[in-house]
Protein backbone atom coordinates (compact mmCIF):
# COMPACT_ATOMS: atom_id res chain seq x y z
CA UNK A 1 0.00 0.00 0.00
CA UNK A 2 2.91 2.36 -0.58
CA UNK A 3 1.24 4.38 -3.29
CA UNK A 4 -2.13 4.84 -1.68
CA UNK A 5 -2.88 7.56 0.80
CA UNK A 6 -4.85 6.20 3.67
CA UNK A 7 -5.90 6.85 7.21
CA UNK A 8 -5.90 4.19 9.88
CA UNK A 9 -8.29 4.34 12.80
CA UNK A 10 -7.71 1.93 15.65
CA UNK A 11 -10.05 0.61 18.31
CA UNK A 12 -9.78 -1.65 21.29
CA UNK A 13 -12.97 -3.64 20.90
CA UNK A 14 -15.43 -4.93 18.35
CA UNK A 15 -18.46 -2.85 19.32
CA UNK A 16 -16.94 0.61 18.64
CA UNK A 17 -15.40 -0.88 15.50
CA UNK A 18 -18.78 -2.00 14.17
CA UNK A 19 -20.33 1.37 15.03
CA UNK A 20 -17.53 3.18 13.25
CA UNK A 21 -17.83 1.01 10.17
CA UNK A 22 -21.53 1.81 10.02
CA UNK A 23 -20.93 5.55 10.34
CA UNK A 24 -18.14 5.58 7.79
CA UNK A 25 -20.33 3.70 5.34
CA UNK A 26 -23.10 6.25 5.88
CA UNK A 27 -20.80 9.14 5.10
CA UNK A 28 -19.51 7.35 1.99
CA UNK A 29 -15.91 6.92 3.06
CA UNK A 30 -14.01 4.28 1.13
CA UNK A 31 -12.94 1.56 3.53
CA UNK A 32 -9.88 -0.23 2.17
CA UNK A 33 -9.65 -2.94 4.78
CA UNK A 34 -10.55 -3.82 8.34
CA UNK A 35 -7.99 -5.70 10.38
CA UNK A 36 -9.11 -7.59 13.48
CA UNK A 37 -7.60 -10.11 15.90
CA UNK A 38 -10.59 -12.44 15.56
CA UNK A 39 -13.60 -12.80 13.27
CA UNK A 40 -16.03 -10.03 14.22
CA UNK A 41 -19.60 -11.09 13.65
CA UNK A 42 -21.65 -8.77 11.53
CA UNK A 43 -18.57 -7.14 10.05
CA UNK A 44 -19.00 -8.83 6.68
CA UNK A 45 -22.54 -7.51 6.49
CA UNK A 46 -21.53 -4.03 7.70
CA UNK A 47 -18.92 -3.88 4.95
CA UNK A 48 -21.52 -5.23 2.47
CA UNK A 49 -19.05 -7.90 1.47
CA UNK A 50 -20.04 -10.34 -1.22
CA UNK A 51 -20.62 -13.89 -0.05
CA UNK A 52 -17.59 -16.03 -0.64
CA UNK A 53 -17.80 -18.53 -3.49
CA UNK A 54 -15.77 -21.09 -1.60
CA UNK A 55 -18.86 -23.32 -1.05
CA UNK A 56 -19.32 -23.50 -4.81
CA UNK A 57 -15.66 -24.36 -5.33
CA UNK A 58 -16.00 -27.03 -2.66
CA UNK A 59 -19.01 -28.48 -4.43
CA UNK A 60 -17.26 -28.58 -7.80
CA UNK A 61 -14.18 -30.26 -6.37
CA UNK A 62 -16.33 -32.68 -4.39
CA UNK A 63 -18.36 -33.61 -7.46
CA UNK A 64 -15.14 -34.10 -9.38
CA UNK A 65 -13.80 -36.33 -6.59
CA UNK A 66 -16.98 -38.39 -6.62
CA UNK A 67 -16.75 -38.90 -10.37
CA UNK A 68 -13.06 -39.76 -10.20
CA UNK A 69 -13.57 -42.20 -7.31
CA UNK A 70 -16.57 -43.99 -8.73
CA UNK A 71 -15.35 -43.83 -12.32
CA UNK A 72 -11.95 -45.24 -11.54
CA UNK A 73 -13.31 -48.20 -9.61
CA UNK A 74 -15.84 -48.90 -12.35
CA UNK A 75 -13.18 -48.71 -15.04
CA UNK A 76 -10.85 -51.03 -13.14
CA UNK A 77 -13.47 -53.69 -12.44
CA UNK A 78 -15.45 -53.63 -15.68
CA UNK A 79 -12.96 -52.68 -18.39
CA UNK A 80 -9.36 -52.85 -17.29
CA UNK A 81 -9.21 -56.04 -15.22
CA UNK A 82 -12.58 -57.64 -14.44
CA UNK A 83 -12.29 -60.18 -11.64
CA UNK A 84 -14.95 -62.19 -9.85
CA UNK A 85 -15.05 -61.62 -6.10
CA UNK A 86 -17.37 -63.94 -4.23
CA UNK A 87 -19.60 -64.47 -7.27
CA UNK A 88 -20.67 -60.83 -7.29
CA UNK A 89 -21.14 -58.86 -10.52
CA UNK A 90 -18.14 -57.00 -11.92
CA UNK A 91 -19.98 -53.71 -11.55
CA UNK A 92 -20.84 -53.99 -7.85
CA UNK A 93 -21.77 -50.38 -7.28
CA UNK A 94 -22.67 -50.52 -3.56
CA UNK A 95 -19.18 -51.56 -2.59
CA UNK A 96 -17.72 -48.67 -4.59
CA UNK A 97 -19.57 -46.14 -2.41
CA UNK A 98 -17.21 -45.91 0.58
CA UNK A 99 -14.19 -45.06 -1.58
CA UNK A 100 -16.29 -42.70 -3.69
CA UNK A 101 -17.34 -40.92 -0.52
CA UNK A 102 -13.78 -40.63 0.76
CA UNK A 103 -12.61 -39.23 -2.58
CA UNK A 104 -15.43 -36.68 -2.54
CA UNK A 105 -14.48 -35.44 0.91
CA UNK A 106 -10.77 -35.39 0.15
CA UNK A 107 -11.12 -33.46 -3.09
CA UNK A 108 -13.66 -31.01 -1.66
CA UNK A 109 -11.55 -30.30 1.42
CA UNK A 110 -8.30 -29.81 -0.42
CA UNK A 111 -10.01 -27.77 -3.14
CA UNK A 112 -11.67 -25.41 -0.70
CA UNK A 113 -8.57 -24.85 1.37
CA UNK A 114 -6.45 -24.18 -1.71
CA UNK A 115 -9.11 -21.79 -2.98
CA UNK A 116 -9.14 -19.95 0.33
CA UNK A 117 -5.36 -19.62 0.41
CA UNK A 118 -5.13 -18.52 -3.22
CA UNK A 119 -7.98 -16.02 -3.03
CA UNK A 120 -6.59 -14.47 0.16
CA UNK A 121 -3.07 -14.56 -1.30
CA UNK A 122 -1.81 -16.42 1.73
CA UNK A 123 1.54 -18.01 1.07
CA UNK A 124 4.74 -18.81 2.94
CA UNK A 125 6.60 -15.52 3.09
CA UNK A 126 9.65 -15.12 5.29
CA UNK A 127 9.85 -11.39 4.51
CA UNK A 128 6.29 -10.58 5.62
CA UNK A 129 5.86 -7.42 7.71
CA UNK A 130 2.50 -6.98 9.43
CA UNK A 131 0.69 -3.64 9.27
CA UNK A 132 0.64 -3.48 13.04
CA UNK A 133 1.99 -6.11 15.41
CA UNK A 134 -0.98 -5.76 17.72
CA UNK A 135 -3.63 -6.68 15.17
CA UNK A 136 -3.15 -10.31 16.06
CA UNK A 137 -3.34 -9.39 19.73
CA UNK A 138 -5.93 -6.81 20.77
CA UNK A 139 -6.09 -4.03 18.18
CA UNK A 140 -8.86 -3.42 15.64
CA UNK A 141 -7.96 -1.18 12.70
CA UNK A 142 -9.97 0.38 9.88
CA UNK A 143 -8.03 1.56 6.86
CA UNK A 144 -9.73 4.36 4.91
CA UNK A 145 -8.63 5.64 1.57
CA UNK A 146 -8.00 9.41 1.52
CA UNK A 147 -6.75 11.68 -1.20
CA UNK A 148 -5.89 14.61 1.02
CA UNK A 149 -4.78 13.10 4.29
CA UNK A 150 -5.04 16.24 6.45
CA UNK A 151 -8.59 17.18 5.57
CA UNK A 152 -9.73 13.59 5.57
CA UNK A 153 -8.41 13.11 9.08
CA UNK A 154 -10.47 16.01 10.38
CA UNK A 155 -13.51 14.86 8.49
CA UNK A 156 -13.27 11.33 9.85
CA UNK A 157 -12.66 12.62 13.36
CA UNK A 158 -15.92 14.50 13.08
CA UNK A 159 -17.80 11.52 11.67
CA UNK A 160 -16.60 9.25 14.44
CA UNK A 161 -17.09 11.65 17.31
CA UNK A 162 -18.64 9.85 20.26
CA UNK A 163 -17.03 6.50 19.45
CA UNK A 164 -14.21 5.18 21.56
CA UNK A 165 -11.15 5.54 19.32
CA UNK A 166 -7.59 4.72 20.30
CA UNK A 167 -5.79 6.57 17.52
CA UNK A 168 -6.21 8.11 14.09
CA UNK A 169 -3.16 8.12 11.89
Amino acid at each position, binding site marked *: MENINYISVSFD*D*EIPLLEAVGKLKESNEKIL*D*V*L*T*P*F*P*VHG*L*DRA*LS*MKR*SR*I*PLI*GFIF*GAFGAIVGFG*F*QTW*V*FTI*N*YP*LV*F*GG*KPFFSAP*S*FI*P*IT*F*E*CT*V*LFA*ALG*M*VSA*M*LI*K*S*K*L*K*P*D*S*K*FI*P*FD*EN*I*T*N*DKFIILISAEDVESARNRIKLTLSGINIIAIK
Partner: protein
Amino acid sequence: MFQSPLRIPLIKGRKTYQSITSDLLNPLMNKPAKLWYLGITLSGTALLFGAFMIFWTVWQGIGTFGENRTVGWAWDITNFVWWIGIGHAGTFISAILLLFRQKWRTSINRSAEAMTIFAVICAALFPIIHMGRALLAFFIFPYPNTRSLWVNFNSPLVWDVFAISTYFTVSLVFWYVGMIPDLGTLRDKIKKGFKKTIYKVLSLGWKGSARHWHRHEVTSILLAALATPLVLSVHSIVSMDFATSVIPGWHTTIFPPYFVAGAIFSGFAMVLTLMIITRKALKLEEYITVSHVENMNKILIATGSIVGLAYITELFISWYSGVEYEHFALMNRATGPYWWAYWIMMTCNVISPQLLWIKKLRTNIIFTFFLSIVINIGMWFERFVIVVTSLHRDFLPSSWTMYKPTIVEVGLFVGTLGFFFTAFLLFVRVFPVIAIAEVKSVVKTVGETHPENL
Protein backbone atom coordinates in the same frame (compact mmCIF):
# COMPACT_ATOMS: atom_id res chain seq x y z
CA MET B 1 -28.00 -9.33 22.23
CA PHE B 2 -29.84 -10.77 25.21
CA GLN B 3 -27.88 -13.20 27.26
CA SER B 4 -29.39 -15.19 30.04
CA PRO B 5 -27.74 -14.26 33.33
CA LEU B 6 -27.93 -17.95 34.17
CA ARG B 7 -25.43 -18.85 31.50
CA ILE B 8 -22.09 -19.14 33.18
CA PRO B 9 -19.04 -17.62 31.50
CA LEU B 10 -16.91 -19.95 29.41
CA ILE B 11 -13.67 -18.37 30.52
CA LYS B 12 -13.07 -17.43 34.13
CA GLY B 13 -11.33 -14.39 35.52
CA ARG B 14 -12.50 -11.44 33.41
CA LYS B 15 -9.95 -11.59 30.64
CA THR B 16 -8.98 -8.84 28.24
CA TYR B 17 -7.88 -9.70 24.72
CA GLN B 18 -4.33 -8.92 25.67
CA SER B 19 -4.34 -11.12 28.73
CA ILE B 20 -5.77 -13.98 26.67
CA THR B 21 -2.90 -13.66 24.22
CA SER B 22 -0.25 -13.56 26.90
CA ASP B 23 -1.85 -16.32 29.01
CA LEU B 24 -2.11 -18.69 26.09
CA LEU B 25 1.32 -17.96 24.68
CA ASN B 26 2.98 -18.25 28.07
CA PRO B 27 3.69 -21.98 27.79
CA LEU B 28 5.52 -21.34 24.52
CA MET B 29 7.50 -18.32 25.54
CA ASN B 30 8.97 -19.53 28.81
CA LYS B 31 11.34 -22.34 29.57
CA PRO B 32 9.42 -25.59 30.17
CA ALA B 33 8.82 -26.73 33.72
CA LYS B 34 10.66 -29.64 35.32
CA LEU B 35 7.54 -31.74 34.89
CA TRP B 36 7.77 -31.30 31.14
CA TYR B 37 11.33 -32.64 31.04
CA LEU B 38 10.29 -35.56 33.20
CA GLY B 39 7.37 -36.27 30.89
CA ILE B 40 9.36 -36.13 27.70
CA THR B 41 12.08 -38.34 29.17
CA LEU B 42 9.54 -40.99 30.07
CA SER B 43 7.60 -40.82 26.81
CA GLY B 44 10.78 -40.55 24.76
CA THR B 45 12.12 -43.70 26.39
CA ALA B 46 8.88 -45.51 25.60
CA LEU B 47 9.09 -44.22 22.03
CA LEU B 48 12.64 -45.52 21.60
CA PHE B 49 11.66 -48.89 23.05
CA GLY B 50 8.79 -49.04 20.56
CA ALA B 51 11.06 -47.99 17.70
CA PHE B 52 13.39 -50.85 18.52
CA MET B 53 10.44 -53.25 18.55
CA ILE B 54 9.34 -51.98 15.14
CA PHE B 55 12.83 -52.62 13.86
CA TRP B 56 12.81 -56.07 15.43
CA THR B 57 9.44 -56.94 13.89
CA VAL B 58 10.47 -55.78 10.44
CA TRP B 59 13.82 -57.56 10.74
CA GLN B 60 12.54 -60.87 12.12
CA GLY B 61 9.02 -60.94 10.71
CA ILE B 62 5.78 -61.28 12.59
CA GLY B 63 6.80 -64.64 13.98
CA THR B 64 7.89 -62.47 16.89
CA PHE B 65 4.21 -61.90 17.69
CA GLY B 66 2.18 -64.22 19.87
CA GLU B 67 -0.36 -64.73 17.09
CA ASN B 68 -0.94 -68.20 15.71
CA ARG B 69 -2.92 -69.93 12.99
CA THR B 70 -6.20 -69.64 14.87
CA VAL B 71 -5.75 -66.16 16.26
CA GLY B 72 -4.40 -64.28 13.26
CA TRP B 73 -5.47 -60.88 14.45
CA ALA B 74 -4.85 -59.95 18.03
CA TRP B 75 -2.94 -57.34 19.98
CA ASP B 76 -1.94 -55.21 16.99
CA ILE B 77 -5.41 -54.94 15.46
CA THR B 78 -6.76 -54.22 18.95
CA ASN B 79 -4.35 -51.31 19.16
CA PHE B 80 -5.21 -50.16 15.68
CA VAL B 81 -8.90 -49.91 16.46
CA TRP B 82 -8.21 -48.36 19.87
CA TRP B 83 -6.03 -45.60 18.45
CA ILE B 84 -8.36 -44.83 15.57
CA GLY B 85 -11.17 -44.57 18.09
CA ILE B 86 -9.21 -42.14 20.23
CA GLY B 87 -8.68 -39.95 17.23
CA HIS B 88 -12.41 -39.55 16.77
CA ALA B 89 -12.97 -37.21 19.70
CA GLY B 90 -10.80 -34.54 18.12
CA THR B 91 -12.89 -34.38 14.99
CA PHE B 92 -16.05 -34.65 17.02
CA ILE B 93 -15.09 -31.62 19.11
CA SER B 94 -13.82 -29.53 16.24
CA ALA B 95 -16.38 -30.45 13.59
CA ILE B 96 -19.61 -31.70 15.10
CA LEU B 97 -19.59 -29.31 18.04
CA LEU B 98 -18.79 -26.46 15.64
CA LEU B 99 -21.84 -27.32 13.56
CA PHE B 100 -23.91 -27.38 16.74
CA ARG B 101 -22.44 -24.00 17.76
CA GLN B 102 -21.14 -25.33 21.04
CA LYS B 103 -18.91 -22.46 22.04
CA TRP B 104 -17.23 -24.26 24.89
CA ARG B 105 -15.35 -26.28 22.30
CA THR B 106 -13.00 -23.35 21.63
CA SER B 107 -10.90 -24.15 24.71
CA ILE B 108 -10.24 -27.74 23.81
CA ASN B 109 -10.53 -28.11 20.04
CA ARG B 110 -6.92 -27.33 19.15
CA SER B 111 -5.39 -29.93 21.42
CA ALA B 112 -8.09 -32.48 20.63
CA GLU B 113 -7.34 -32.09 16.93
CA ALA B 114 -3.64 -32.50 17.59
CA MET B 115 -4.51 -35.63 19.51
CA THR B 116 -6.46 -36.93 16.51
CA ILE B 117 -3.50 -36.52 14.23
CA PHE B 118 -1.07 -38.25 16.58
CA ALA B 119 -3.54 -41.03 17.31
CA VAL B 120 -4.11 -41.73 13.62
CA ILE B 121 -0.35 -41.96 13.07
CA CYS B 122 -0.13 -44.48 15.92
CA ALA B 123 -3.06 -46.43 14.48
CA ALA B 124 -1.63 -46.57 10.97
CA LEU B 125 1.53 -48.20 12.26
CA PHE B 126 -0.21 -51.43 13.27
CA PRO B 127 -1.76 -52.61 10.01
CA ILE B 128 1.44 -51.66 8.21
CA ILE B 129 3.69 -53.84 10.32
CA HIS B 130 1.07 -56.54 10.59
CA MET B 131 1.32 -56.97 6.84
CA GLY B 132 4.58 -58.73 7.59
CA ARG B 133 6.59 -56.99 4.93
CA ALA B 134 6.23 -53.40 6.01
CA LEU B 135 8.49 -52.19 3.21
CA LEU B 136 5.90 -53.34 0.69
CA ALA B 137 3.03 -51.56 2.42
CA PHE B 138 2.53 -49.32 -0.59
CA PHE B 139 0.97 -52.36 -2.34
CA ILE B 140 -2.32 -51.38 -0.70
CA PHE B 141 -2.60 -48.30 -2.89
CA PRO B 142 -4.00 -48.69 -6.39
CA TYR B 143 -1.14 -47.66 -8.65
CA PRO B 144 -0.26 -48.85 -12.15
CA ASN B 145 2.17 -51.73 -11.77
CA THR B 146 3.90 -54.37 -13.87
CA ARG B 147 1.54 -57.09 -12.62
CA SER B 148 -1.34 -55.01 -14.05
CA LEU B 149 -3.33 -55.88 -10.93
CA TRP B 150 -5.39 -53.49 -8.89
CA VAL B 151 -6.41 -53.67 -5.27
CA ASN B 152 -9.77 -55.21 -4.41
CA PHE B 153 -12.17 -52.29 -4.17
CA ASN B 154 -14.82 -54.60 -2.72
CA SER B 155 -12.79 -55.17 0.41
CA PRO B 156 -13.33 -53.15 3.59
CA LEU B 157 -9.60 -53.43 4.22
CA VAL B 158 -9.02 -51.34 1.10
CA TRP B 159 -11.81 -48.95 2.07
CA ASP B 160 -9.94 -48.55 5.33
CA VAL B 161 -6.83 -47.39 3.51
CA PHE B 162 -8.85 -44.70 1.74
CA ALA B 163 -10.85 -43.77 4.81
CA ILE B 164 -7.88 -43.42 7.12
CA SER B 165 -5.63 -41.60 4.67
CA THR B 166 -8.46 -39.18 3.84
CA TYR B 167 -9.25 -38.76 7.52
CA PHE B 168 -5.62 -38.02 8.32
CA THR B 169 -5.24 -35.53 5.47
CA VAL B 170 -8.47 -33.68 6.18
CA SER B 171 -7.79 -33.55 9.92
CA LEU B 172 -4.32 -32.21 9.31
CA VAL B 173 -5.58 -29.55 6.92
CA PHE B 174 -8.42 -28.57 9.28
CA TRP B 175 -5.99 -28.28 12.17
CA TYR B 176 -3.53 -26.19 10.22
CA VAL B 177 -6.13 -23.87 8.69
CA GLY B 178 -7.56 -23.24 12.14
CA MET B 179 -4.11 -22.47 13.44
CA ILE B 180 -3.04 -19.90 10.81
CA PRO B 181 -4.37 -16.84 12.73
CA ASP B 182 -2.74 -18.00 15.95
CA LEU B 183 0.53 -18.59 14.14
CA GLY B 184 0.20 -14.96 13.08
CA THR B 185 -0.13 -14.00 16.74
CA LEU B 186 3.00 -15.97 17.55
CA ARG B 187 4.87 -14.34 14.67
CA ASP B 188 3.99 -10.89 15.97
CA LYS B 189 4.80 -11.71 19.59
CA ILE B 190 8.22 -13.17 18.98
CA LYS B 191 10.62 -10.30 18.52
CA LYS B 192 13.32 -11.70 16.29
CA GLY B 193 15.45 -14.64 15.30
CA PHE B 194 15.06 -17.98 13.64
CA LYS B 195 11.84 -18.75 15.47
CA LYS B 196 10.22 -15.63 14.08
CA THR B 197 11.15 -16.63 10.53
CA ILE B 198 9.63 -20.08 11.04
CA TYR B 199 6.35 -18.63 12.27
CA LYS B 200 6.41 -16.07 9.46
CA VAL B 201 6.55 -18.88 6.95
CA LEU B 202 3.95 -20.99 8.77
CA SER B 203 1.46 -18.14 9.27
CA LEU B 204 1.37 -17.59 5.50
CA GLY B 205 1.34 -13.81 5.85
CA TRP B 206 -1.88 -13.70 7.86
CA LYS B 207 -2.92 -10.10 8.45
CA GLY B 208 -6.37 -10.39 9.99
CA SER B 209 -8.19 -8.70 7.14
CA ALA B 210 -11.99 -8.86 7.32
CA ARG B 211 -12.15 -10.53 3.92
CA HIS B 212 -9.66 -13.16 4.97
CA TRP B 213 -11.60 -13.83 8.15
CA HIS B 214 -14.76 -14.22 6.13
CA ARG B 215 -13.19 -16.81 3.82
CA HIS B 216 -11.50 -18.48 6.76
CA GLU B 217 -14.80 -18.88 8.59
CA VAL B 218 -16.65 -20.14 5.53
CA THR B 219 -13.90 -22.67 4.87
CA SER B 220 -13.81 -23.81 8.50
CA ILE B 221 -17.54 -24.40 8.72
CA LEU B 222 -17.56 -26.30 5.43
CA LEU B 223 -14.58 -28.38 6.47
CA ALA B 224 -16.53 -29.17 9.62
CA ALA B 225 -19.53 -30.17 7.54
CA LEU B 226 -17.31 -32.49 5.50
CA ALA B 227 -15.44 -33.86 8.48
CA THR B 228 -18.64 -34.80 10.29
CA PRO B 229 -19.75 -37.57 7.91
CA LEU B 230 -16.09 -38.40 7.38
CA VAL B 231 -15.48 -39.19 11.03
CA LEU B 232 -18.63 -41.33 11.12
CA SER B 233 -17.53 -43.14 7.98
CA VAL B 234 -14.05 -43.92 9.26
CA HIS B 235 -15.05 -45.99 12.23
CA SER B 236 -17.97 -47.50 10.34
CA ILE B 237 -15.50 -48.77 7.78
CA VAL B 238 -13.15 -49.99 10.51
CA SER B 239 -16.08 -51.93 11.96
CA MET B 240 -16.79 -53.43 8.54
CA ASP B 241 -13.34 -55.03 8.62
CA PHE B 242 -15.05 -57.28 11.15
CA ALA B 243 -18.72 -57.06 10.26
CA THR B 244 -18.38 -58.21 6.64
CA SER B 245 -16.59 -61.39 7.68
CA VAL B 246 -18.34 -64.66 8.53
CA ILE B 247 -16.83 -65.06 12.00
CA PRO B 248 -19.50 -65.41 14.73
CA GLY B 249 -19.10 -62.45 17.06
CA TRP B 250 -17.90 -60.24 14.22
CA HIS B 251 -20.68 -60.79 11.71
CA THR B 252 -23.00 -58.21 13.25
CA THR B 253 -25.01 -55.45 11.62
CA ILE B 254 -24.94 -53.36 14.79
CA PHE B 255 -21.20 -52.83 14.47
CA PRO B 256 -20.96 -49.50 12.59
CA PRO B 257 -23.03 -47.32 14.99
CA TYR B 258 -21.70 -49.28 17.96
CA PHE B 259 -18.10 -48.68 16.90
CA VAL B 260 -18.68 -44.99 16.22
CA ALA B 261 -20.23 -44.45 19.65
CA GLY B 262 -17.41 -46.42 21.23
CA ALA B 263 -14.85 -44.36 19.35
CA ILE B 264 -16.25 -41.07 20.55
CA PHE B 265 -16.54 -42.51 24.05
CA SER B 266 -12.91 -43.58 24.20
CA GLY B 267 -11.77 -40.43 22.43
CA PHE B 268 -13.40 -38.18 24.99
CA ALA B 269 -11.88 -40.24 27.77
CA MET B 270 -8.46 -39.62 26.26
CA VAL B 271 -9.18 -35.91 25.75
CA LEU B 272 -10.11 -35.70 29.42
CA THR B 273 -6.97 -37.53 30.51
CA LEU B 274 -4.80 -35.17 28.49
CA MET B 275 -6.71 -31.97 29.23
CA ILE B 276 -6.76 -32.50 32.98
CA ILE B 277 -2.99 -32.85 32.97
CA THR B 278 -2.52 -29.99 30.52
CA ARG B 279 -4.69 -27.48 32.35
CA LYS B 280 -2.78 -28.19 35.55
CA ALA B 281 0.68 -28.27 34.00
CA LEU B 282 0.25 -25.18 31.83
CA LYS B 283 -1.90 -23.34 34.40
CA LEU B 284 -4.88 -23.06 32.07
CA GLU B 285 -7.54 -23.66 34.72
CA GLU B 286 -9.29 -20.43 33.79
CA TYR B 287 -9.64 -21.53 30.17
CA ILE B 288 -10.39 -25.22 30.61
CA THR B 289 -12.82 -24.92 33.47
CA VAL B 290 -14.77 -27.42 35.51
CA SER B 291 -17.78 -26.77 33.30
CA HIS B 292 -15.74 -27.86 30.26
CA VAL B 293 -14.90 -31.07 32.08
CA GLU B 294 -18.55 -31.47 33.03
CA ASN B 295 -19.68 -31.02 29.44
CA MET B 296 -17.26 -33.67 28.27
CA ASN B 297 -18.46 -35.94 31.05
CA LYS B 298 -22.01 -35.55 29.78
CA ILE B 299 -20.86 -36.75 26.37
CA LEU B 300 -19.23 -39.69 28.15
CA ILE B 301 -22.56 -40.62 29.71
CA ALA B 302 -24.35 -40.40 26.37
CA THR B 303 -21.83 -42.39 24.34
CA GLY B 304 -21.11 -44.76 27.21
CA SER B 305 -24.78 -45.60 27.47
CA ILE B 306 -24.97 -46.25 23.72
CA VAL B 307 -22.00 -48.57 24.05
CA GLY B 308 -23.66 -50.35 26.97
CA LEU B 309 -26.86 -50.69 25.00
CA ALA B 310 -24.90 -52.15 22.09
CA TYR B 311 -23.25 -54.77 24.33
CA ILE B 312 -26.60 -55.84 25.70
CA THR B 313 -28.22 -55.86 22.26
CA GLU B 314 -25.42 -58.09 21.01
CA LEU B 315 -26.06 -60.53 23.84
CA PHE B 316 -29.80 -60.45 23.29
CA ILE B 317 -29.54 -61.00 19.55
CA SER B 318 -27.12 -63.89 19.95
CA TRP B 319 -29.83 -65.62 21.97
CA TYR B 320 -32.86 -64.36 20.04
CA SER B 321 -31.47 -65.15 16.58
CA GLY B 322 -31.15 -68.81 17.54
CA VAL B 323 -27.87 -69.12 15.63
CA GLU B 324 -25.89 -71.59 17.67
CA TYR B 325 -22.49 -70.34 16.51
CA GLU B 326 -23.36 -66.79 17.48
CA HIS B 327 -24.71 -68.06 20.76
CA PHE B 328 -21.54 -70.00 21.48
CA ALA B 329 -19.29 -67.07 20.56
CA LEU B 330 -21.03 -64.73 22.98
CA MET B 331 -21.23 -67.29 25.78
CA ASN B 332 -17.56 -68.05 25.27
CA ARG B 333 -16.81 -64.36 25.57
CA ALA B 334 -18.60 -63.96 28.85
CA THR B 335 -17.79 -67.28 30.50
CA GLY B 336 -14.92 -68.80 28.46
CA PRO B 337 -11.21 -68.59 29.24
CA TYR B 338 -11.17 -64.86 28.49
CA TRP B 339 -14.09 -64.09 30.84
CA TRP B 340 -11.94 -61.67 32.81
CA ALA B 341 -11.36 -59.49 29.74
CA TYR B 342 -15.08 -59.43 29.05
CA TRP B 343 -15.95 -58.42 32.58
CA ILE B 344 -13.23 -55.77 32.73
CA MET B 345 -14.80 -54.36 29.58
CA MET B 346 -18.31 -54.49 31.04
CA THR B 347 -17.30 -52.88 34.32
CA CYS B 348 -15.18 -50.12 32.79
CA ASN B 349 -17.45 -49.19 29.90
CA VAL B 350 -20.97 -49.90 31.03
CA ILE B 351 -21.04 -49.45 34.79
CA SER B 352 -18.38 -46.83 35.46
CA PRO B 353 -19.69 -44.02 33.18
CA GLN B 354 -23.10 -44.32 34.85
CA LEU B 355 -21.51 -42.82 37.97
CA LEU B 356 -21.37 -39.54 36.06
CA TRP B 357 -25.09 -39.04 36.52
CA ILE B 358 -24.11 -37.74 39.95
CA LYS B 359 -23.25 -34.06 39.61
CA LYS B 360 -20.73 -34.13 42.46
CA LEU B 361 -18.72 -36.78 40.64
CA ARG B 362 -18.83 -35.29 37.16
CA THR B 363 -17.59 -31.94 38.44
CA ASN B 364 -14.82 -33.57 40.40
CA ILE B 365 -11.56 -33.27 38.49
CA ILE B 366 -9.68 -36.04 40.28
CA PHE B 367 -12.55 -38.49 39.93
CA THR B 368 -12.90 -37.60 36.24
CA PHE B 369 -9.21 -38.14 35.65
CA PHE B 370 -9.34 -41.53 37.31
CA LEU B 371 -12.50 -42.47 35.42
CA SER B 372 -11.08 -41.39 32.07
CA ILE B 373 -8.19 -43.81 32.54
CA VAL B 374 -10.59 -46.57 33.56
CA ILE B 375 -12.55 -45.95 30.34
CA ASN B 376 -9.38 -45.96 28.23
CA ILE B 377 -8.51 -49.35 29.67
CA GLY B 378 -12.06 -50.60 29.22
CA MET B 379 -12.19 -49.56 25.60
CA TRP B 380 -8.90 -51.26 24.91
CA PHE B 381 -10.35 -54.44 26.37
CA GLU B 382 -13.49 -54.03 24.27
CA ARG B 383 -11.42 -54.34 21.11
CA PHE B 384 -9.36 -57.15 22.58
CA VAL B 385 -12.54 -59.04 23.45
CA ILE B 386 -14.01 -58.55 20.00
CA VAL B 387 -10.84 -59.53 18.15
CA VAL B 388 -9.40 -62.35 20.24
CA THR B 389 -12.36 -64.09 21.88
CA SER B 390 -14.19 -64.37 18.55
CA LEU B 391 -11.20 -66.06 16.98
CA HIS B 392 -9.60 -68.27 19.57
CA ARG B 393 -12.31 -70.93 19.56
CA ASP B 394 -13.31 -71.25 15.92
CA PHE B 395 -15.45 -73.80 14.08
CA LEU B 396 -12.93 -76.61 14.50
CA PRO B 397 -12.36 -77.57 18.16
CA SER B 398 -9.04 -79.21 17.27
CA SER B 399 -7.64 -75.78 16.42
CA TRP B 400 -8.89 -74.09 19.56
CA THR B 401 -6.10 -72.24 21.22
CA MET B 402 -5.15 -69.41 23.53
CA TYR B 403 -3.42 -66.19 22.65
CA LYS B 404 -0.69 -64.57 24.72
CA PRO B 405 1.14 -61.41 23.66
CA THR B 406 4.92 -61.36 23.44
CA ILE B 407 7.20 -58.62 24.69
CA VAL B 408 7.47 -57.37 21.09
CA GLU B 409 3.75 -56.70 20.82
CA VAL B 410 3.59 -55.06 24.23
CA GLY B 411 6.64 -53.02 23.26
CA LEU B 412 4.96 -51.81 20.09
CA PHE B 413 1.97 -50.64 22.09
CA VAL B 414 4.13 -48.93 24.69
CA GLY B 415 6.02 -47.34 21.81
CA THR B 416 2.89 -45.83 20.31
CA LEU B 417 1.91 -44.48 23.72
CA GLY B 418 5.39 -42.99 23.88
CA PHE B 419 5.02 -41.44 20.45
CA PHE B 420 1.61 -40.03 21.31
CA PHE B 421 2.74 -38.32 24.49
CA THR B 422 6.08 -37.17 23.06
CA ALA B 423 4.29 -35.61 20.11
CA PHE B 424 1.79 -33.94 22.42
CA LEU B 425 4.50 -32.58 24.70
CA LEU B 426 6.35 -31.14 21.70
CA PHE B 427 3.09 -29.73 20.36
CA VAL B 428 2.42 -27.71 23.52
CA ARG B 429 5.87 -26.17 23.16
CA VAL B 430 5.59 -25.03 19.55
CA PHE B 431 1.90 -24.31 18.87
CA PRO B 432 -0.68 -22.52 21.01
CA VAL B 433 -2.53 -25.29 22.82
CA ILE B 434 -5.79 -23.32 22.91
CA ALA B 435 -7.20 -21.54 19.85
CA ILE B 436 -6.42 -17.92 20.82
CA ALA B 437 -8.52 -16.14 18.21
CA GLU B 438 -11.51 -18.41 18.82
CA VAL B 439 -11.38 -17.89 22.57
CA LYS B 440 -11.27 -14.12 22.02
CA SER B 441 -14.35 -14.32 19.85
CA VAL B 442 -16.39 -16.06 22.57
CA VAL B 443 -15.08 -14.36 25.68
CA LYS B 444 -17.48 -11.43 25.43
CA THR B 445 -20.48 -13.06 23.85
CA VAL B 446 -21.12 -15.75 26.42
CA GLY B 447 -21.94 -15.07 30.04
CA GLU B 448 -20.87 -11.46 30.13
CA THR B 449 -23.94 -10.57 32.13
CA HIS B 450 -23.51 -13.43 34.56
CA PRO B 451 -23.10 -12.23 38.17
CA GLU B 452 -19.79 -14.08 38.36
CA ASN B 453 -18.42 -11.78 35.69
CA LEU B 454 -19.73 -8.43 36.93
